[in-house]
Each structure stands twice: as structure tokens, then as C-alpha cells.
């Protein structure tokens, strides 16, 4: 089974590179679109000093800190992983934003915020990772004040779903297995009381992510004898899947969507 092998590769990689290296090479330091797309989303939210932004699945806090520095807003970042929250908290301290930006361990389906408390919400490349996306969207809507804005980005697929060769990729990349058409995301938001005012595809962003994954896999292969044989084999298989992902990207069955929606 491919997913079993993916697990093996993950385990091998972290063993081979150790924590710090894995962070930069194979970790989540990069989401499609990078800092530039985050900045675009943050600007859509029209935040100012004193406003409260909730960053759902805030990871290591890069976007939350960026939003605070760019707009002067306060941020509460919520992430399921305690190690992410610890790192993000340390990063906020380094940035001198300990008072403005806080990170808490929490579930997207149960945000630690009173009803209508947040002026805006940010959710980057994570909707497809939530076990119950509809519940997470409803929770974001609950936390937003009426008129508050949500900026969301995520991997999207064609309405007809992904082709058979991409199903193999989906076995490797968790977010692909649960990715949905952008129309479905829009429908889910509307149902929760969030009216989309901007719906866009940013497929180039995901092309850059594929470039990055390919470069990392090639590095694992180029390192040769320095990495365990299983990792090299995994890299070889990964590179075949990268080629499949490129084809899906070219024919539009795979892409990256951005939605900005307003709480009714």
C-alpha cells in the first residue's frame, strides 16, 4: 500500500536528517504561494490596530506574525500541535509581539473564542486536513462578528475529482486525499453564513510547491550514499508522483483556491 510506504519514507527522512534539517527540507515551512500570497490574504482582511484576527491552524506562526507586523492587529493563533504552538510562541517573543500575538493549542472545530469575538479569520492550506471541514467552517463563522471577513486558501480539485494516477499521489499527500472542488468550499461557507466576495484560483502557487517538493526529493537522491537506501527509493517513487502532479496541474484537475467571505 502506498500510504504504508509514505509512512516509512517519513520515518526514514526524519531519522536521516534529524529534527532541524527536516524542518527546512521536508517540513511545513512553506505553503503554496508563500509569504506573498499570505500578504495578499492579509490585505483582503482590511485589518487595523486593535482588531482581532484568528489564525486557524497557525503552524509555526509565520502568517500570524506577518499579519500583526503588517497591520498592527492582535492575533490569536490556534494549532493542534503543541510543538508548533511552542515554536510560534517563541517566535512571537523574538519578534517583540508577545503582547499582540498569542498561540494556543486547540482544535479548529472548537475555537477558544466567544461568539462574534474575532474581526477576521485566516485559514491557509488546512481546510482539507480537518477531519470535519464543515464543522470547522461553522466554528469560524461562530467566532466571527457579523461583517467580519474570512480569507481561506486551500488545495482544490476539479469537480469531477482526481484521475486514477493522482489517487496514488493522494495516498502520499494527506491534503490531496480530502481536497474538494472550489465550488464545494464556497457552498460550505454559504451554508455556515459566510458569503463569498472573492473566489480565485492561484494554480501557479501550487506549481511552485511541486517544484519545491521535486527539488527536495532530488536532493535526497543526489545525496547518494549519505541517506539510507529506503529514502533514496522513496525519493525515486516520489519523483514519479511529482510528474503525475504536474500533469494534473496542467490539465486543471489540481489547483489552489482562494476564497474571501463575509460573515452575514
Amino acid at each position: 500500500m502506498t500510504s504504508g510506504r509514505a509512512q516509512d519514507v517519513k520515518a526514514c527522512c526524519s531519522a536521516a536528517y534529524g529534527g532541524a534539517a527536516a524542518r527546512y527540507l521536508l517540513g511545513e515551512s512553506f505553503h503554496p504561494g508563500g509569504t506573498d500570497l499570505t500578504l495578499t490574504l492579509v490585505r483582503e482582511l482590511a485589518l487595523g490596530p486593535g482588531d482581532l484576527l484568528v489564525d486557524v491552524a497557525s503552524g509555526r506562526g509565520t502568517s500570524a506574525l506577518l499579519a500583526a507586523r503588517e497591520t498592527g492587529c492582535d492575533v490569536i493563533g490556534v494549532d493542534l500541535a503543541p510543538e508548533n504552538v511552542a515554536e510560534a510562541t517563541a517566535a512571537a517573543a523574538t519578534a517583540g509581539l508577545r503582547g499582540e500575538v498569542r498561540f494556543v493549542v486547540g482544535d479548529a472545530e472548537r475555537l477558544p473564542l466567544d461568539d462574534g469575538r474575532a474581526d477576521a479569520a485566516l485559514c491557509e492550506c488546512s481546510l482539507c486536513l480537518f477531519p470535519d471541514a464543515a464543522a470547522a467552517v461553522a466554528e469560524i463563522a461562530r467566532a466571527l462578528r457579523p461583517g467580519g471577513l474570512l480569507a481561506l486558501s486551500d488545495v482544490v480539485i476539479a469537480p469531477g475529482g482526481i484521475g486514477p494516477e493522482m489517487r496514488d499521489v493522494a495516498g502520499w499527500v494527506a491534503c490531496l486525499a480530502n481536497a474538494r472542488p472550489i465550488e464545494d468550499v464556497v457552498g460550505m461557507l454559504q451554508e455556515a453564513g459566510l458569503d463569498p466576495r472573492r473566489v480565485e484560483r492561484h494554480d501557479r502557487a501550487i506549481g511552485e510547491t511541486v517544484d519545491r517538493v521535486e527539488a527536495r526529493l532530488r536532493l535526497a537522491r543526489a545525496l547518494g550514499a549519505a541517506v539510507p537506501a529506503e529514502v533514496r527509493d522513496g525519493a525515486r517513487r516520489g519523483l514519479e508522483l511529482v510528474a503525475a502532479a504536474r500533469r494534473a496541474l496542467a490539465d486543471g484537475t489540481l489547483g489552489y483556491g482562494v476564497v474571501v467571505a463575509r460573515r452575514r
Partner: protein
Amino acid sequence: MASTERARKADRDEVFLELTRSICPVCKRVIDAEVNIRDGRVVMRKRCREHGSFEALVYSDADLYMSQIRFNKPGTLPLEFQTQVRDGCPLDCGLCPDHKQHACLGLIEVNSACNLDCPVCFADSGHHADGFSLTREQVARMLDAFIAAEGDPEVIQFSGGEPSIHPQIVEFLQMAVDRGIRNVMLNTNGIRLARDRRFVDELARLGILVYLQFDGFDDATHRAIRGRDLRELKERALASCADAGLAVTLVAAVERGVNEHEVGAVVRHGVAHPAVRAVVFQPVTHAGRHIAFDPLDRLTNADVMRLLAAQLPEWLEVRDFVPVPCCFPTCRSMCYGFVDEGTLVPFARLVDVEDYLDYATNRVLPDLEVRHALEGMFSASATPGAEAALLSCESCGIAPPDGLADFAGRVFMIVVQDFQDAYTLNVRQLMKCCVEQITPDGRLIPFCAYNSVGYRERVRASLSGAEVEPVVPNALPIQDLLAPTRHGSRTVRARPGDGAPRGPR
């Protein structure tokens, strides 16, 4: 107003970016200069009250130019300055206390003689009887001046003329190695490397980095830039270096209409060749001797990067190049890559290099250890092996240490470097220059000032004892003002009543 038809105000066709200082390309007088964006290109315009208006292309992609300004690292003070501020930039070189950066790379031209007479040579070198050849004492003084300024210099490059024909060149290289300068480079046309195996072995013994002129593969390219077909000699030189284990950087001078179509092939050749670790592309510097050119249609870094992306579509995109932050960021861009099964994989796709080297907006607070390692790589002093700092950096330890020895040989560097000439000289860039020409009186003169303001002519005159005429760019709009010098460059045609030519001390 009596008139019923009112005149409508029109917009200018350009966006004004800055007012700076430059020089008149003819008399070298320091004059104001405007930098504007017009038709998506960055153009400098200036006016000399004696010689009129001049326009020159600075960068052919305005969007790229603007986005690169962020990559501007705060300068580092050298241990000592060599001159005082008296007349203002660019007349007090150097380095004067107003200079914004220390020297990443020092250059020593050991002679003016060359075994070639290339139609393109910013140093105006060749088979001339009126040249100079440095003595051991002069070179010692220059190395000591460099060390006094830098403490622990990163790179020294020996150049000329053709340095390999200086009878004491091995001794000079040894002197630099003995002084502990970390990287010692020889800038050469390769003729001696092809013909003298013992010389190659001496270089290998000293661990010299070879900086080999290599402009392309067409006979026409060789004849246009070097005056003769050197293809076989270049290959023999490369083979000899590979055999001796020398690391070679190929250096291509690129000129409009001559070898633009060959830049991709030069990279391919380098990636495939066991001796080659890097390729440097330099749009031909319109200083010294060169082919007549149109200042508004010259090649810039943006053109070279676009040519590389177009000729190597399966390997590179323009965004794989990173502006070098130690000098002014539009002067030099670099792309590191590693070679995997014959394919070059750009380094910028592994790490968000831009997030680490964006000093102006500082949107992301970078891990300083990673930033420091990346600064070492994306620097004017980067030589083959510079990636070791990042690869061994604990914060990002991209490769496990055991794999490094094997992997280092697979890292490849592509540099695109545009030098300024008397048309494009901008003191804003010049004041941050980190490539310095060392003079026998112990000054460190920014390379582009040395070649375009008049320093080169004065130093050459004082070293050779022969008069050296002030050199003027061989630009198409000023052809009727020009006369050839005896070295092949151009000077101002003498006119009755002309005053003495201006220039720095």
C-alpha cells in the same frame, strides 16, 4: 481665458525613481543623473553642460529591479579606510570613509601585457611595448594593504593583462596563500593552462581557483570577443585542470548580437565538465576596448537571466536567481543548484532564500544562523565551496555531515554580474561596491570606478611611465567625438581650445 479651446496637460512617459550622481562619459565631470522607468525598463539620463545629454539602459526589467531593492544588506565597515573624503564620490577612491561596504573581493592586476589582443578588453591589454609589470615588493605591499583593511580577507584575484605570463606569478600566488587569504584566484585566458602542465600542477599544489574566460562555442564568438579561435585551447586547459583537480569557474563576456544565444550551452558544458564548479556571465563592460554599442540597447542582468531561462527551460526560471545583498542588489544575481542525474536543481526551490535576505521589509523574522549562512553563499566573495556554510549550518543542516564531501562536488553556481561603465555609473551602487581594485600605493578602488572614472588610466601611467589617454566608451551616439588610442580603446578627438581632461587624483 479668451480661448475656448483649452490646452490639455499630458502625462510624462516615465516614472521618476531617483536623482543621483554620475559622470559625463566624455569629460568624466561629475554630474547629476536621473533614473526613470520608461516602457518597463530602467533608464539613466544625465546632462553635461559641455557635452550634452546622455541616456543609458540600467536594467531591462523594471519590475525585477524594484523587487530586488529589498535585498540590501547593511554594509560592514572595513578595519581601515585608505583615503579621506575631499571631492565626494566618485573622486575620492578609495576606500573613503563614505563607502558603505568592505571589500568582499580584492583584485590585483600584475601586468598590462597579454598574449592575446582581444577586441573586447576593459583593461586595454595586449602586445604593447608601453606597459607595466609589478614587482614582488609592489605585490607584497598590495596584499598587506588588503589585509590591513580586511583583517581576514575572503578572496584575492590575480588578473592583468594576462597574469599567467608574468614571470613571477607563481611566487605572487604563493605570497597570497602564505598570508592566509582564504581563496586565491587566477583570472586567465587559459593559454598557459593548455600548454604548460607543470604550471597547472603548481596551481593545484597551491589550491588556486581558476577563473577561466570562456565566452561560447561558435568560431564567430571567439573571433568577435577574443580575436581568434581559442576553442581547442580552452578544452585542453579544462582537461588539464580536471586532471590536476583544480576547480574552475567559467567566465563568459556576453555581448548583444554576438553570443547571447550561447549562454545556456555554456552552463550545460560547465555542469557536465568535471573541473567546472561555476559559471559567471558578465554583460561586456563598456570600458577600455570594446565593440561599438548602443547605450540604450545594452545587455543587462535581466536580459542574461531571461536568456538563461529561455535556453535552459527544463532547469531554470528567472525566479531561481537571488539578488546578491552584500553589494547593491541589482549589480549581481546568483543561482545555486545541485546536479542530480545530469539535471541542475536550483537551490532557491529548497529554501525560501528571499525570506532570509529581504532586509528592507523584514516581513519574516529569519533564523539568523540560516541568514548568515545564506549571506556567505549569496555574496560577491562566494567561490566554489561557499555552500558549505549552509550545508553544515546547524539550524538547517541540509545535508548530513557524512554526505558533504561527496555532495559538495555536485553543487554548481551561476552568477550574473553587470559592471557599470561611464554611461551607467551611479554613485548609489558604487558606494556599496564590494569588488575592489588594489593599487600599488595601497588604495582599494571600487572596480567600476576604476574602469570608468579615470583611475585606471592614471594608475597605468604612473606604473608604466608612459602617457595614457583618458578612455571614453565606444558608444554609437558619440562616434563623431572619438578617436582611437594606441591600445585600441577610444579617447576624445583633440579639438582646439579644449581644456585638460578631468578626473580623479
